[in-house]
């Protein structure tokens, strides 16, 4: 991304610093404003100054990696910078630390107490009625569909039997054996059409559960533990 004027550049820097969690932005921005002013006084165009300053993202990352915004002591960030020249007094001899591999971005995950309390409250809600309600609905749906399929098969068989052996005396029906058998076929095939939506609903329910589990693990351990059904691994 090329920046052509100061406003664009400063705005990009603000955005990048906010993303990187740099808090002490005012003084930094003053420094850069001044840099632009000095550049203009030296006869440089704003575009030139932008180009020479470089990617705001990189600058923001470096401010963030210096680690002065979390109240950390300065000495710790020196090692993190993989600098061969420790700035703290009595620095480790250069032969041992010089040109270390690039600093690995530490995954500084920590559990937030507020998030845990939030989880407990949401869990109370979820497990007291949301999950039970959804689960019963899904079970009811499956039962109805399975019931209708078997009822249709039964009607068909009954219709065929009645046609073959005659309607028994104890059974009163106003339907003929043929219409009974046909009705059974219609009922079964109609119910079979419901199997697809039924599985979709079941899958949706399982995915909701997986989301809940992942949400817990993200909050408590910083990562997902399960992939959703029907999604390729890595995409979830």
């Amino acid at each position: 991304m090329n920046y052509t004027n100061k406003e664009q550049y400063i705005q990009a820097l603000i955005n990048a610093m906010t993303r990187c969690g740099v808090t002490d932005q005012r003084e930094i921005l003053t420094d850069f404003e001044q840099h632009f002013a000095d550049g203009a006084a030296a006869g440089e165009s704003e575009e030139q100054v932008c180009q020479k300053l470089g990617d705001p993202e990189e600058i923001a990352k470096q401010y963030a990696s210096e680690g002065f915004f979390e109240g950390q002591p300065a000495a710790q960030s020196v090692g993190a910078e993989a600098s061969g020249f420790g700035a703290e007094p009595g620095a480790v001899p250069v032969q041992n630390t010089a040109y270390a591999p690039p600093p690995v971005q530490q995954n500084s995950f920590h559990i937030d107490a507020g998030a845990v309390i939030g989880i407990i409250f949401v869990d109370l809600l979820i497990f007291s009625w949301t999950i039970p309600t959804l689960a019963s609905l899904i079970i009811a749906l499956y039962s109805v569909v399975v019931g209708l399929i078997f009822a249709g098969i039964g009607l068909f068989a009954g219709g065929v039997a009645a046609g073959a052996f005659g309607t028994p005396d104890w059974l009163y029906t106003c339907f003929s054996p043929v219409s009974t058998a046909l009705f059974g076929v219609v009922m079964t095939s109609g119910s079979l059409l419901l199997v697809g939506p039924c599985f979709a609903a079941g899958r949706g329910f399982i995915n909701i559960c997986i989301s809940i589990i992942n949400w817990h693990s993200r909050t408590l351990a910083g990562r997902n533990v399960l992939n959703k059904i029907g999604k390729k691994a890595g995409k979830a």
Partner: protein
Amino acid sequence: MKSQLKRGTLELCVLSLLSRSDCYGYELVNRISDCMQVTEGTIYPLLKRLKDNRSIDSYIVESQEGPPRKYYSITDMGRAQKEEQEAEWFSFSAAINKLLKGENE
């Protein structure tokens, strides 16, 4: 590797320049970029770190034209660090030069 090498030595360059005279940001940045190719903007985070380390200090000078300028100066502690790092650099670079040129074989 290239930028890592620069980043490690940049601190010494800043301390060395400031040990000779106080500079304002733009001036310092330009003196460094005159000698080597650097992403100029990344010198400011370094200055902030050095300042937070109390290796350097800053003061404001009102100027006739434009906004007041922030000047950087080296502290006694920074000067000691510069001496130390400079010595390390000379011995380290001498050793590397020797190795690269194959003089000890």
